[in-house]
């Protein structure tokens, strides 16, 4: 795989004279490649969207919140590291492990919330009224009753996916800050985040399409009917387990001598 070399190239881009358009193409590809690497909540996103029978718009929200959170986290950590001697306070690997614990807690919380909703509400046919204007205008093939209260969970998953910055993006920003090219570096980090978002959005769309197909055919197939009933519980359980796993792995890391 040349994903590694792509993110190494990303560091070199900061030297490109002016604001080079090619640099943005590379940053986008590096972000997409980064999102394809293990982790980063792709499976979580897919499970969530399939489990809560999401819409395309939900997938877009998910990708968008990952990109926004990732950019914010790189910016905050990069500036703190460069100008406020963050490294005197805490070693980076410790900081990122704590961020992973926070991300794990968010995922665990989302999973538990989904489980509770399914256990409590039986099948998700309740209607909610919290976001006034957005369900009047999109028509999800007659599946209106499924659009209930997905945003909070999606947001939490998106934030958890972008909480831990990628090393390549952090290095690009730090290099830019050291060289006096902070603006260009931040634009590259932003583009990197958009690359990540596009991949996650694509995976979300696949999950949505898959679950819509299943729901549509559920009336005629007994097995699919079973699938539609089991998937939400399976997804909620999976997300809960994943969150617990993330916390456990990070805690072991933290306990290990460094």
């Amino acid at each position: 795989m040349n994903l590694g070399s792509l993110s190494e190239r990303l560091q070199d881009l900061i030297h490109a004279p002016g604001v080079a358009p090619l640099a943005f193409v590379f940053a986008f590809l590096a972000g997409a490649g980064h999102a394809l690497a293990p982790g980063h909540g792709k499976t979580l996103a897919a499970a969530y969207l399939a489990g809560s029978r999401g819409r395309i718009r939900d997938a877009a929200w998910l990708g968008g919140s990952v990109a926004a959170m990732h950019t914010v986290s790189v910016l905050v950590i990069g500036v703190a590291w460069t100008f406020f001697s963050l490294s005197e306070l805490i070693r980076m690997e410790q900081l990122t492990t704590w961020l992973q614990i926070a991300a794990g807690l968010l995922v665990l919380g989302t999973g538990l919330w989904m489980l509770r909703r399914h256990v409590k509400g039986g099948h998700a046919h309740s209607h909610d009224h919290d976001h006034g204007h957005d369900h009047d205008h999109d028509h999800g093939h007659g599946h209106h009753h499924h659009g209930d209260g997905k945003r909070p969970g999606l947001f939490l998953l998106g934030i958890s996916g972008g909480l831990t910055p990628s090393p390549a993006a952090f290095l690009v920003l730090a290099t830019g800050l050291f060289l006096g090219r902070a603006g260009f570096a931040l634009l590259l980090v932003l583009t990197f985040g958009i690359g990540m978002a596009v991949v996650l959005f694509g995976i979300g769309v696949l999950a949505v399409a898959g679950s819509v197909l299943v729901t549509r055919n559920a009336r005629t197939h007994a097995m699919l009917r079973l699938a539609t009933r089991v998937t939400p519980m399976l997804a909620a359980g999976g997300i809960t387990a994943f969150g617990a796993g993330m916390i456990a792995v990070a805690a072991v890391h933290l306990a290990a001598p460094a």
Partner: protein
Amino acid sequence: MSTRTLVALAVIGVAAGTAVFTPRPAAAHPFGDPQTVVITPDEQRSDVVHVKWRVGGPDDLTVLGVSLGLLPADRVRADGTVDYRYNDPGVVGASPAFAGYLLDRITVTDGGRPCTGAVEPIAALALKGATAGFTCPGPVTSATVAVRTLTDLHPAYRTMATGPGGQRAVYEGANDTHTWSLTGAGAGLGRSALVQIGAVLGGVLVLAGLVAVVVKRRVAA
């Protein structure tokens, strides 16, 4: 219908299955601080320059120790992961081979005249780093410092360097030499960074506002 159904089932099955069976953290790769050096003039002697070097992630010191022959080679596994132990920095820091490496990879010259380096006693190498003092032939006002540490292990290594008065530079494979003013002429990078970041964030906000307005108009229409 049956193929579409199969595809749909496969998508959901894979999604749920992977979510259940692979609890993997978001970042499997170690994420450490970048390698840093700090250049400071000696307060008492105008002919001495100090260079403090600090490693990045804890695994970098172990990899360096292996390459210097101080640690067993099997610490770096075939898949590239590093089995680092908490006493590795102590082993590396205590060795004269490491001091030699440092003085070989970090050099200081004053207008072409080389300065003689000596590594100061090392305590807590991983946490505090190592400092070398370079004595030049005469009083120095600007020093040319070359840093080539760790790039022999992997060319992608970068060194973030800080000098007197807020000067900053980045050392990398092709760009390993930088001249520092020791009298402390600040470059005002902090303010410039603030302005640039502010401009980018402002631009993004304006863009987001425009998109929101367009979307609202389309929804209203």
